[in-house]
């Protein structure tokens, strides 16, 4: 069960080999997390993440593999993860995402479909599979890794950012649907994070590393905040950016 400080004991990570997910998992295991399910595509990366979790304090780690390009894998991945825990799941992290190559993908229908499936349709399907299980539990927390990129979608990454925007907005409604159920949903909106996903990209201002995002997420778990920004200045920065006149918005994004 989650304790008074929002520290979970049982954790399921969908997209468990992502850099942010791995950092979060380490921190959670250093606190109270003992049973961890790491679900993702790449088994050897998941294995690495599991070793890190064990090193940080986990006593039971389980691996589940799925392909986020196939929405029908969401239900079975969630089912397998819950079965592996075998007890109430305190925290589910959804860290599934694909940055893609905007300029290549935008004229390729298959690539565009892939971007919307991995970043939107798969997470939404997984959320539906999770929702009923967690509501039946009467407890638990869902953390969805979104992005500040979804607050205002820009030309240079609209396939990725647009899908994140959809997921993010959907989660706002989903969070409201959970009021009174004992289940809490929190949305994480990181800024530019230095990870293997963003290697080679030009960092945006206020860029952070995955460890910093993990720290912000873990401290956000203990709070009633619907949205966790990382770094926290993103909240104020995007409060302004989202209302910039379009020409100005395009202008500042030209170089990126």
């Amino acid at each position, binding site marked *: *069960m989650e304790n008074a400080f929002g520290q979970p004991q049982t954790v399921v990570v969908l997209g468990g080999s992502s850099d942010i997910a791995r950092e979060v998992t380490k921190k959670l295991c250093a606190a109270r997390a003992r049973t961890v399910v790491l679900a993702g595509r790449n088994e050897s990366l998941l294995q690495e993440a599991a070793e890190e979790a064990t090193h940080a304090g986990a006593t039971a780690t389980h691996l589940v593999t799925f392909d986020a390009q196939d929405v029908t894998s969401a239900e079975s991945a969630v089912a397998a993860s819950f079965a592996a825990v075998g*007890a109430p799941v305190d925290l589910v992290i959804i860290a599934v995402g694909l940055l893609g190559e905007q300029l290549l993908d935008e004229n390729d229908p298959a690539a565009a479909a892939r971007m919307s499936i991995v970043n939107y349709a798969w997470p939404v399907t997984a959320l539906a599979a999770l929702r009923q299980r967690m509501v039946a*539990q*009467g407890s638990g927390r869902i953390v969805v890794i979104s992005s500040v990129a979804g607050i205002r979608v820009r030309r240079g990454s609209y396939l990725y950012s647009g899908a994140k925007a959809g997921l993010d907005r959907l989660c706002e409604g989903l969070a409201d649907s959970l009021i009174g159920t004992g289940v809490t949903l929190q949305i994480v909106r990181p800024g530019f994070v230095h990870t293997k996903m963003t290697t080679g990209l030009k960092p945006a201002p206020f860029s952070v590393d995955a460890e910093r995002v993990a720290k912000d997420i873990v401290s956000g778990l203990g709070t009633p905040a619907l949205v966790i920004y990382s770094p926290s200045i993103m909240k104020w920065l995007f409060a302004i950016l989202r209302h910039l006149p379009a020409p100005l918005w395009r202008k500042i994004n030209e170089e990126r």
Partner: protein
Amino acid sequence: MSREKLYGWGRTAPSVADVLEPTAEEVTGLLRTSTHVLSRGLGRSYGDAAQLAGGLVLRNSAMTVMDEIAPDGSVWVDAGVTIDDVIRVGLPLGWFVPVTPGTRQVSIGGAIAADVHGKNHHVDGSFGHHVRSLVLATPTGTITCGPTERAELFWATVGGMGLTGVVLRAQIQLLAVTSDKVVVDTTRFANLEAVMHEMQTGDHRYRYSVAWVDCMTTGSAMGRAILTRGDHAEGTGERHSPRDAKIGVPFSAPSGLLNSLSIRAFNELWFRMAPKQRLGEEQSIGAFFHPLDGVRDWNRLYGRRGFVQYQFAVPDSASETVVEAIKLLAESRVPSFLAVLKRFGAGTPGPLSFPMPGWTLALDLPVGPAALPGVLDQLDTLVLAAGGRVYLAKDARLDPATFRAMYPRFEELLHIKHQIDPTTVITSDLARRLELIRK
């Protein structure tokens, strides 16, 4: 049946369960037909002891019959009768509860499950010491037990955090009093060492004793304290019941209202307002035992994130641990309200009994400071090293390994439980968090 979000008094990690308010007869049937059940009283335990996420929670509030008090001061009460009820009925007749915690708003079922203690623990022990008999509904039937009848089950139930079954009724031995007043001696101490010395050498002269300690002052005034001790007054006049709360807190205060600064100011004020020494002052029972009952829902003052209470007991040989704990707290600068320091007598024979001869310290800590979870983990280490333990009725954050080390007799409870609840119907969020029960 309603689906309800249930909180502990600290309002920290609520969960949702189906909630019923059954009669004693209905409890028996529900225990046979349900898969996950827990009994709940008035929700005054601080953490997750009276919660069962996704299960069936049985409030004892429909079980409210109190029999006539026998000439010897014993009385049969239903589990949902409160300490407040017993005082209201008993005091005018010359009877007082043998043990009362800091609030009257506790059901008898809850008082037994948490084996509550009060300011007289060093003399009279905990609530369980004054229970002559109790009727316990279990998934395999209803059992009457007491200190001389099925004693193992009885002592597993007293302080068993509701995990052996649902208490339906109990026979309590009341205390004869002739007055509704307490004669109180109050003394202010400049530091921790002085007050602890006085408690060690002088507490035996009083039935009731408790010290309020300031845990936010460092240096030579570290642990300055106000010691209040008293005994029931002698009297011949009418005895009046305590009054109802006149003020309430209708909604959660903004988080951060109780911060380092405001708590420090409160502690300062509290300390300054206390007399250096005042002897023989007559106080009403309500003012002496239940000062916080004057404000309904005072826990909401801690805001949306709530608060945790950390209460530990250490043996007399580990007096130094009390000093170290207060030092750690003061130096870590996490805000804490005036802490309650008390001498404990012996615990019960129960496997989860909390008290032990020595000291107990209870701290109220608002949730919020990033350092707090780590500071409490450090306190766990100190307490464990001293052979002590933390109180489960207050706990909301202990980890399973530390729990097992602090309560090494937990397996005895599970053994007894297995005989009466072989399929583990009765469980709680607390039991799950401590991995005492994995269901």
